[in-house]
């Protein structure tokens, strides 16, 4: 196996990425440029997150990968395999057992601890880009805290839909300073960003940006006084584990178009079922 350095990247590249991570932690929410490397997988497959994970993993870590909450999608499996092969680290599907969790589109339901690092895969790091495509200008807006434009985006949302319809990548203000795109997690997950005991790292490969939220950092979702932020989800319990507090996926279950709601966090759902929790469509217990 060992044609590669530990965790694939060479030590100099890892040092460069670690410096970017440390800078990001020192300036919460600030997008730090870094020299993204070619990874043996296409952009859009989380190369930013993979590089961050590669720079922080140690042989003693236990690694978990989730994609939309699930451990078993092609993307999650291939990233997990990649680090099993190149770093030889232990892997797990259980949130509680992992020390490093790489994620696309979700934050686990099980509360994270000080002993954990959450690594987000980020497609577009710049929250202001939607209305201001010039990077020279958005950089200036960040440095001068000119964030009125973010509310113009939310204003447009309300004027078009009657409410803030943005439900993913919902912008946040970090520690009262930088406005940040939390990556395309559902806004239901936004409150979990706030004052999390875990370190939260964000890697954008194609765009060559790293940013970070240190533990116990204030993260506030932007809103209007008369249209306050709401961490909404489908108004159902999980049909398999009965959870009322978890983010749900809607799944079509037969040709007649019947649907069920299940936890998007598959580890959370399975753990609850193992503990004996039941939902509307759970098999009868004998």
């Amino acid at each position: 196996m060992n044609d590669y350095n530990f965790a694939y990247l060479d030590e100099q590249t890892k040092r460069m990425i670690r410096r970017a991570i440390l800078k990001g932690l020192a300036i919460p929410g600030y997008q730090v440029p870094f020299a993204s490397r070619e990874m043996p997988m296409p952009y859009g497959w989380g190369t930013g997150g993979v590089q961050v994970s590669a720079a922080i993993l140690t042989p003693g870590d236990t690694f978990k990968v989730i994609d939309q909450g699930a451990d078993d999608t092609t993307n999650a499996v291939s990233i997990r395999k990649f680090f099993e092969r190149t770093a030889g680290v232990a892997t797990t599907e259980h949130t509680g057992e992992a020390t490093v969790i790489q994620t696309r589109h979700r934050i686990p339901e099980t509360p994270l601890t000080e002993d954990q690092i959450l690594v987000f895969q980020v497609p577009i790091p710049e929250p202001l880009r939607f209305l201001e495509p010039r990077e020279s200008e958005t950089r200036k807006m960040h440095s001068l805290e000119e964030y009125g434009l973010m509310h113009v985006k939310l204003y447009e949302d309300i004027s078009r839909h009657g409410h803030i319809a943005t439900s993913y990548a919902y912008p946040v203000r970090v520690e009262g300073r930088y406005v940040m795109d939390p990556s395309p997690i559902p806004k239901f997950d936004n409150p979990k960003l706030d004052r999390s005991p875990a370190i939260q790292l964000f890697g954008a490969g194609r765009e060559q940006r790293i940013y970070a939220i240190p533990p116990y950092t204030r993260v506030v979702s932007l809103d209007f006084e008369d249209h306050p932020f709401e961490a909404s989800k489908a108004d159902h319990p999980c049909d398999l584990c009965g959870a009322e507090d978890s983010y749900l996926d809607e799944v079509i279950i037969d040709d007649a178009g019947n649907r069920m709601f299940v936890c998007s966090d598959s580890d959370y759902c399975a753990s609850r079922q193992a503990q004996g929790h039941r939902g509307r469509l759970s098999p009868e217990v004998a």
Partner: protein
Amino acid sequence: MMKDDAQTPLLRVRGLTKTYGGRIGCADISFDLWPGEVLGVVGESGSGKSTLLGALAGHLAPDRGEVIFDTRAEGPRDTVTMSEPERRMLARTDWAFVHQNPRDGLRMNVSAGGNVGERLMAVGARHYGNIRATATDWLGRVEIDPARIDDRPQAFSGGMQQRLQIARNLVTGPRLVFMDEPTGGLDVSVQARLLDLLRGLVRDMGLSAIVVTHDLAVVRLLADRLMVMKSGRVVEAGLTDQVLDDPQHAYTQLLVSSVLQV
């Protein structure tokens, strides 16, 4: 320190010079603008009007000179030497800039209401209902049907776009408005309506403004005082009626006579 508005010019410009690689854009411009006053800047194309306006508004860094603005908080400050954050703060609070081409002054992918509301949100407005009510009011004031509040400017005529740009700029009650050829590129009939509207707003709000134009009819209607520019320099200045009715400089005489021939 007590401020005395009657004795402090709103804007005091001294020796303002901007060159483009050795070529003169505008040179050695000095004047005072008093609160509530509208200053017209006229001259043929290429005479340096836009350069002067850009240097005044902080869009272009001048080579030399002072642009001293009577700030609310600290009284007269040279905006050329103040920090960029301070200057940008002025640009979205006490100053406004109306571009000749509304596309340069509007966000074309944002609704009319969002365009008007942006400056409010930039200075901290966080109540959607209030922002919308203010935007609705301002659309009415610039004669745009408030029912169009959610339409994007692309769907508007040139005249409407220009009126929207004006609303977007005036909504926060700026103390100084820079306008570069505000009626340029519009049909004559549309120009007349826009001028009427501008004159009403300037009067009602007691605005101080600097209006750049090559169109003497515009300054005749809007400006209290006039500066005539040629080759980057001011060749004549004075009260609008005096300059237009009794021009002293040969170049001004030419300008005035050419408008009479139209």
